[in-house]
């Protein structure tokens, strides 16, 4: 059985909710809660990072009014939704079944909790490491940083980086089977990077 909000699906569902009109984060949480008859209420810590990621990908924008962020879907976001209409339909029917069936819901809750806990532990581990490093550096002599590497010929360096980049991406793609959603996101990331480069180099 696949979890209702397995990898990437909550994100898709947020897009879908935003397609009905601009919302602020709290309204989105409330709507999800309603959809699940109050049995599932994602926390702010689950929703906001996903919204931020959507925003970074250019699929939503936000306007801040009265100290509160209202999120709105962009044209790119709508296009994404249209592309994945079949996935959205499947997701909605999964949500309906999961609410009717308590046992499935329990599995959802367990998966969701486990996923959040894993992410959180990673985040806290990183934060602890940062804190330790910071304390250590502020309390001890820090050797001067080596001078930044200054390549003689920047054009050659750019070429070299480009080749290394392509090689690494190809390696990543080869390294195991990837889901359609992952590949699609990867393609979008490439497009975004290309856009950025065009803007810089034009």
């Amino acid at each position, binding site marked *: 059985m696949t979890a209702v909000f397995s990898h990437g699906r909550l994100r898709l569902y947020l897009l879908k909710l935003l397609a009905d009109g601009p919302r602020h984060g*709290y309204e989105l949480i409330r709507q999800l809660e309603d959809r699940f*008859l109050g049995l599932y209420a994602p926390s702010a810590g689950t929703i906001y990072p996903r919204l931020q990621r959507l925003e970074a990908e250019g699929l939503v924008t936000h306007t801040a009014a009265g100290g509160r962020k209202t999120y709105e879907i962009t044209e790119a976001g709508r296009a994404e939704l249209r592309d994945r209409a079949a996935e959205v339909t499947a997701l909605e029917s999964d949500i309906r079944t999961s609410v009717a069936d308590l046992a499935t819901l329990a599995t959802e809750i367990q998966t969701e909790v486990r996923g*959040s806990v894993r992410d959180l*532990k990673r985040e*806290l*581990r990183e934060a*602890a490491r940062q804190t330790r490093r910071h304390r250590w550096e502020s309390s001890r002599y820090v050797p001067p940083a080596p001078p930044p590497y200054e390549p003689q010929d920047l054009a050659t360096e750019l070429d070299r980086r480009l080749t290394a980049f392509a090689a690494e991406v190809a390696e990543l793609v080869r390294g195991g089977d990837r889901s359609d959603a992952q590949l699609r996101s990867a393609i979008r990331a490439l497009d975004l990077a290309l856009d950025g480069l065009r803007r810089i180099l034009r």
Partner: protein
Amino acid sequence: MGRWIVDRPQRLTIDEVVDRLEVRLVSGRLNVVGTDGPARVEVVQASRVPVVVEHRDGRLVLRHERTPRWPGVFWWLGQLGRRFRVDISLAVPPDVWADLRLVDGSVIASGLRSTTVVNVTSGQVTLMGLGGRTQAKLVNGPVEALGMSGDVSVETISGELVVADSSAERVRATTVSGAITCDLDNPRHSEIRLGTTSGSITVRVREDSDLSVHLHTTSGRITSAFPQLGASGSAGSKHSEGAIGSGEGRLWASTTSGSIALLARPVEDEDIDLQADGVCGDTP
């Protein structure tokens, strides 16, 4: 009043009031969600020894007709555990008083708002969005709790304890050999007590907390993101104490050989937003 003997997958709906739930089962999976509407019992997988569902005076009880007796229980678990293995889901009103006991297996509880007591000997406990008073106890196995509020107490001998995304006022977590991870959106006056013997403790509190802090470890390492805490220690043990903010609440963490990390949780505008909303936007 009603009494059912369930020996195959079955769904029951109880239309009368349920304000107390008692579950005494041996093995398998138990799932309880608090939700409006009539109480429901879904037996997904029934054990060979039937489950008795009884409802009287608002009290809903699930148990086996006959349970294995100590000291035979481990033999039962090993040899014939499947005779008692169930997979049962319950939907009950959120304000129900719940007492859930299982010898071996997993308990998942969500959406309950009053008092929830979970006792598992060996297995795991998953809690989500519980309020009021919550107590989970295991001998062997982890507790993962998310979105908790109110008063939370989790305890295990060997297993990891996680309380995250929570705005609980009182948190108590004790384990002997597992790690404790707490990420709290702690309100003022909160009281947090964490203790392990050999596991590590990682606790993150709001950067604008008001807590008087006592961290203590015998042979571990203390990391703190709050520079206002003073450190002291000799070869024998290390302490770190001090006040964050006005020091009204209390945070106490102690380990023997594990490390302690106290981290600061940045307070975002969104959080404040959300709390303000919760106050005035809660009416349906």
